[in-house]
């Protein structure tokens, strides 16, 4: 197993193992700083972002909503964690030359053509459905997958099985099952 692959990428085993170390250090650091252990996660931040945007146009609607009240619309630890992901990825991509402006992913273009509008529409629609699902399931592949399974949570194993099981099925319908290209 090589640590470094071509084009500046790291082995997914190595990068993943380092995320494991990061998750442990983060659990310890959040416990020390906030008195309560916080685990890596992302999807609640989208609720807070929606609440912040909605508050700008309809503050009374946000104040009166039970879910926004429950999740507290604020820029908290996890919100900044998700923000940090953007910058971490940017720096990694710029320093190894893998940064690339891309409007349509290669695998998508291979199946559905180079239309940016088509890709944008389906990414948007998929995003709506995925986030409703993530909030109902109470987590995403970070919160349920990484953090849940690390703790051996039954909910983490169950959620990841549904995520991947459905993902495999729908990907087969959308992108086709046979090898082409």
């Amino acid at each position: 197993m090589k640590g470094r692959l071509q084009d500046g990428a790291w082995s997914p085993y190595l990068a993943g193992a380092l995320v494991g170390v990061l998750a442990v250090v983060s659990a310890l650091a959040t416990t020390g700083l906030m008195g309560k252990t916080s685990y890596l996660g992302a999807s609640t931040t989208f609720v807070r972002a929606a609440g912040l945007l909605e508050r700008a146009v309809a503050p009374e609607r946000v104040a009166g909503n039970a879910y926004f009240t429950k999740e507290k619309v604020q820029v908290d630890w996890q919100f900044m964690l998700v923000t940090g992901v953007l910058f971490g990825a940017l720096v990694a991509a710029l320093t190894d030359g893998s940064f690339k402006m891309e409007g349509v992913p290669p695998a998508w273009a291979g199946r559905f053509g180079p239309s940016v509008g088509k890709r944008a529409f389906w990414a948007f629609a998929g995003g709506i459905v995925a986030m409703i699902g993530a909030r109902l399931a109470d987590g995403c592949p970070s919160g349920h997958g990484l953090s849940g399974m690390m703790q051996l949570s039954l909910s983490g194993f169950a959620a990841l099985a549904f995520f991947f099981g459905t993902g495999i099925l729908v990907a087969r319908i959308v992108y086709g099952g046979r090898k082409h290209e």
Partner: protein
Amino acid sequence: MSSQMLGLLTGFAFGFLLQKGRVLRFDKQVGAMRLRDMTILKFMLSAILVGGVGIGLLSHWDWIQIAHKPLNVGAIAIGGVLFGAGWAVMGFCPCTAIGALGEGRWHALFAVLGMVVGAALYAELYPLLKSTVLAWKDFGKLGLPEALGVSRWAIIPLFWAMCLGLFAWFEKRAL
């Protein structure tokens, strides 16, 4: 240090590693769901294997608390199916969409916008869901060790063995 600053630093390291492992790509995400390229599974399981040992030790020493999410079966099943379907079409999960923007894949912006709209819609649906799906059977905050009545340290070596076997199989099949 503020909790926001800690979050930003942790997120920066997380985003850096996600990018270095090349798991932020649409092609990798969809490749895993099409069972052709297991990069994201190798990445996730490696993180879980290493993190699982560390979290297990620190919680054993009472340095951190375990925080299981509740096993609310109906919500996890329906939510999991919706998430899986959206994930396959969008080609990103929440974290990787943000990270993909960072590496210049700006089509991820539409995924991010969709997810913000989805979150706002969920907030509107919440009162209805709370009295229906979310009120169904909830087994509570349950861990595999308690459910099976065995020690965490009986499960972790077994999980390591299963994953290492899976990794060997991935490498043999060049997945």
